[in-house]
């Protein structure tokens, strides 16, 4: 078990290092140091990490919701800001999800290819015809409305960008395929 955990952590750190190396210049988006964040997170909760929702804001602050592997009906939020990871914050739902609903909703961290993010941001700007747009939020969540199946029952990256004149958003599948684009 310990060996498996160690291998997982090693693979993750390696992958995240690659992301950091590929990240665009800081002026384009304040990319958070996901390598450091996930290293801290794994050291705290261990593997496997099952992601309920991931959000990165305009300033590169991260809010990651993960399933508690000891109590699988519970979800905790970990915030990462300026290199510091928060203690777990209980996520409060308006309607308690069942274990089955949370199990279905979560995304295995190992299936998330963070290296695709910079490319997805570039694709989003091109797709929307907004080359000078700035990222103001990046989200990852399964499109199943918290356990209720919808037509998009897959994990969806959503890249939100804006300019002084327009707001836009592009949705991607985990493998970087464009699912939807919308600008106003």
């Amino acid at each position: 078990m310990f060996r498996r955990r160690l291998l997982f952590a090693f693979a993750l750190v390696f992958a995240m290092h690659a992301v950091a190396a590929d990240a665009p210049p800081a002026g384009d988006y304040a990319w958070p140091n996901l390598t450091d964040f996930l290293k801290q997170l794994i050291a705290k909760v261990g593997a496997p990490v099952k992601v309920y929702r991931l959000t990165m804001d305009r300033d590169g602050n991260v809010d990651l919701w993960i399933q508690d592997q000891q109590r699988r009906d519970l979800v905790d939020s970990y915030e990462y800001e300026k290199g510091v990871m928060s203690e777990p914050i209980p996520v409060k739902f308006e309607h308690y999800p069942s274990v089955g609903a949370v199990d279905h909703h979560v995304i295995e961290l190992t299936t998330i290819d963070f290296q695709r993010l910079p490319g997805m941001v570039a694709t989003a700007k091109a797709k929307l015809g907004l080359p000078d747009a700035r990222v103001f939020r990046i989200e990852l969540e399964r499109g199943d409305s918290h356990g209720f199946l919808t037509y998009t029952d897959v994990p969806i990256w959503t890249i939100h960008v804006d300019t002084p004149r327009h707001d836009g958003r592009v949705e991607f599948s985990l493998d970087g395929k464009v699912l939807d684009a919308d600008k106003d």
Partner: protein
Amino acid sequence: MPTRIEVALVAALVVACTEALAAEPVAPAHPLDDPAAVKAAFAARIGKPVHVMQFGFGEHYSDAIVQNDAAQDEFDRYEMVPGQPMKEGTPQKSGSVDCKKKIAFADLDLAAAARVLGEARAIAAGNGYKQPENVQLGADVFCNDFGWRAYLTSETNSDAMLEIVWSPAGASPKARRLKDDGWAKVDMKSLAAGTAKAPPAAPKNEPAPTPGDGRERDFTHGIEADLARVEAKVGAPLGFKHIRVDKEQLSMDVFSPSNKKRVATYLVDNKGEIRLWREDDTIPFDCNKPFSASDVPIAQLPAMIAGAPALIPPMAQGWVKDVSIYRSGLCGAPHVYIQVEDDRGYGNVEYDQRGRLVSAEVQ
């Protein structure tokens, strides 16, 4: 001692600044007296063919939202303060311009705007409204009736509002005023004659609050004594529609003893002050069958509340958020509904009119 290069740089800077200032159009000092100069200043500042989506016109401030004719998803806002240089326009989010009704800038008639603002002020003075600051060119919230608009409000009645709309050329005025929850047409001739006065504020005849008795309350520990105090204030047995309880406040919707189609809401705060908060008509087809305190297990309420979290296994560490008592289902017997909360979510516990547990489950 500055070098020749430094002197040349300072001179170039002065020239550049002077040119920049000279290039900025200056707004006229008295816009209402010279609307043509206002339009010329906007035209100079905008400097390209545009359509006007919105225009606010007054003597202290004017602004415009325009659409670039050459790029129709580009909207900019320009502002004007009398006597001041006009700044460059600020880009507007395309999505923030909901209504696409517009007129060509060449057709913008600010002389008409100045005239209708004068008419609006005369109507305000003659009918007891406040003087409007400006008139606005644009459509209504439903993207209809594109024209100049004046909104008149009353000093003495915050519920009174009169809207007058003219065409973009300042013709065909029509007026309407807020009445109840909708609009009612008002005759322009009556307004011009000063015989369509702003309605006076409705007299407030709510009774004075009953002062608290100095005792600090937690209503989750019992409400019987305070129900009796409210009954004494009302002067008749209470016929309830709804009772709500939390630690800090007890509130109850009570049918009026003299008119069963009216419901009054009384609030009791944690110091015991009783206040009539509001009175409303009953809602047709809603359950309007009163219940009395004796129809529900009021005496058992503290025990029900204290025991509610433990009845929902994952929420044993939770706390009670609030309690409601009202008729269950389709106007059935009154039940007690206790909402439980913890760090993760909410749960509900329900008791029937005899105090028997009906359900206890997470939400």
